[in-house]
């Protein structure tokens, strides 16, 4: 507990000001990034949050069973179809009743990008005063590894299986965070479990931003069970997703995009996919399609941040 290493660790631990409200042993798979995330949030934001969750990977632990619970947070088990509307109802009533609150609408990508996308967009449009966190494990991992809108090109899932006539998902993934930033909501950010200091800062910014309206966090949350990698590699998968720009870390305040971590020399996306079985069947040409998509998304992100700044110029400015 001496030396440089301690100082570095303390920076992240400094953010953990509150108790972990979860039981020490819970019913998540070994190596689950969602468990790390859900324990991390209340330690940073406090235990007086109200958290909502849907039937999903988070449900076995978040929602409890009958009168028993894995944690001591106030929570609401919602429908996938209306998760953001449920959080809206809570936050609006607390505002009406003058009750200080931090409502966290905590959902997987199935709810956020697929079945509950309409009400997520509705809540963003109305600038509802709560924090929406999407933990993105790129499919319906709890239901049995089916494809969702955020499943990337080439991934083999149980509804886009690799076979003699199929290369896995033959469609590109939805860029959910960028869509949300385009709503020009007070705060949008991406984050992952390999960069905890970055995540903690973004959580606190989201809490501050929800006083002005809607805050959205898109957290990359790999799944050893569904993706096919060793449980001990979860953090490494996160790290490589960032280093290849497969999942860049950025934030947007009122639509103004800013990279929170810039990768000087991005590694090829194959250094990320090589860890994961769901991509194992892809050949070089297939991987190039994925690489092109990653490059395109990253380029768009940079381009939009420049364009957004230009559009912010006062009307009177001469050019």
């Amino acid at each position, binding site marked *: 507990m001496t030396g440089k290493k301690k100082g570095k660790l303390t920076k992240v631990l400094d953010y953990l000001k509150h108790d972990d409200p979860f039981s020490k042993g819970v019913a998540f798979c070994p190596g689950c990034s969602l468990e790390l995330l859900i324990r991390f949030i209340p330690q940073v934001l406090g235990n007086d949050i109200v958290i909502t969750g849907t039937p999903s990977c988070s449900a076995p632990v978040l929602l*409890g069973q*009958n009168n028993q619970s894995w944690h001591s947070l*106030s929570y609401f088990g919602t429908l996938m179809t*209306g998760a953001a509307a*449920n959080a809206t*109802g809570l936050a*609006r009533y607390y505002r009406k009743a003058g009750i200080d609150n931090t409502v966290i609408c905590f959902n997987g990508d199935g709810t956020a990008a697929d079945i509950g996308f309409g009400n997520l967009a509705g809540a963003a449009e109305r600038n509802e005063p709560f924090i929406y966190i999407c933990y993105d494990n790129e499919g319906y991992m709890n239901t049995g590894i089916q494809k969702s809108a955020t499943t990337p090109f080439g991934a083999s899932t149980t509804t886009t299986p690799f076979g003699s006539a199929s290369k896995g998902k033959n469609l590109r993934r939805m860029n959910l965070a960028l869509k949300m930033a385009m709503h020009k909501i007070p705060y949008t950010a991406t984050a992952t479990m390999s960069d905890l200091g970055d995540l903690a800062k973004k959580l606190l910014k989201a809490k501050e931003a929800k006083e002005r309206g809607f805050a959205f966090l898109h957290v990359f949350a790999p799944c050893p069970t569904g993706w096919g990698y060793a449980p001990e590699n979860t953090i490494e998968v996160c790290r490589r997703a960032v280093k290849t720009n497969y999942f860049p870390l950025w934030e947007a305040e009122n639509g103004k995009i800013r990279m929170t971590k810039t990768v000087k020399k991005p590694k090829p996306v194959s250094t990320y996919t090589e860890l994961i079985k769901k991509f194992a069947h892809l050949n070089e040409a297939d991987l190039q399609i994925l690489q092109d998509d990653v490059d395109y998304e990253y380029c768009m992100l940079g381009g939009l941040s420049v364009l957004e700044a230009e559009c912010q110029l006062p009307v009177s400015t001469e050019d």
Partner: protein
Amino acid sequence: MNTKIKAKAKAGSQIKVITGNAAAAIGAKLARPDVVAAYPITPQTEIIEQISKFHADGEMDCELITVEGENSAMNAVMAASLAGGRVFTATSSWGLVFMYDAVLATAGARAPVVMVNVNRETPGIIAVSSGQQDMISTRDAGWIFLIAENCQEIIDLVIQAYRLAEDYDIQVPVMVHYDGFYLSYLSEVVDVPVQEDVDKFLAVLKDQPERTKLIPGGKLGCGSHGILDGYLELRYKHVSAMERSKAKFEQTDKEFQEIFGRGYGGLIEEYRMDDADVVLVGSGSMCGTIKTVIDKKRDAGVKVGLLKIRMYRPFPSEVMVKALKGKKAIGVVDRSLCFGFKGGPIYTELKAFETQLDGSKMISFIDGIANTDITIANVEQMIDATCDLAEGKDVREVTWVSYPEAQEPDSEKMGGR
């Protein structure tokens, strides 16, 4: 519809000529909800427009959520209700169906939501027209269902609904139904209650123990996995609360009468039933027409009466059996269909109690589907047929009154092929 307008204003109350939708909106306003979710759909839209105007004019101090769809409307008010708020929303037909998962979840969570449903035909055939098929399609959702006959009853039922939904011993969501088009857009004389009276009527709820509320740091979970005995316990308690709501509604109706000077008889209204030999059973706006025809038939010496259903869920079987027992013949008028059964839904349900009716015979009338008017002539035909049944004549079991081409659905006759 309101055939007998008693424009006798209670001191301080206002007599207004307003639509059924306006009555619903004013009823909601008088109940002072904390959170209202608004999404338009014909023929309900005028309700949320009026509420939006009340809100814009500072007459209504609520959080108004202009949601992006009905599914979100129900989800938002369910959550706000579980957090402790008084809530209101309104919908119709396709909207009710679009929020169906949340309608079920709201009941399962025992969230005391009050919603108006302006009856309209459901998806299947695009019918922008009246009918109770939407009500029938959601009757097993675990909500309390009330049905209004006229604009006055709409405003009164919306107010009364909160006393049922939020009562500590009940805590079950309430849906107030009324016929779209016939009542939604019909202007009638309405005695609009005074705010102080409504406050007084609803103040009883404040004296009750506080219901469980989902608040920050409160260490409370809503919507856990209920399985095995946990699920059974919650379902049994829900069913029991539904049963308790019958007596509660009777009592609430009496208290309402004490304050507002209007009572409706509770779960059912009996019209000229005492010495009646034959009875029509109906609900909603058709009852105004039926009452008019009954008066005419009575003048001609026909002993006919009406049993109007006001509370449809829970099904008021006890009072219905008591009122119908020993009558010679009963004609049940349904404004909806019961797919898989020949007769209408309410007819089919009442059939379950036939053995308790001491030999009363029953027939089914299907009418008023998709804005086919239930006319005076139609009601006369129904009464005549029911009288024929009473006299032992051979009468068809099911009649589609406005569709004379309809054979009784029958595989041999190949009716409706």
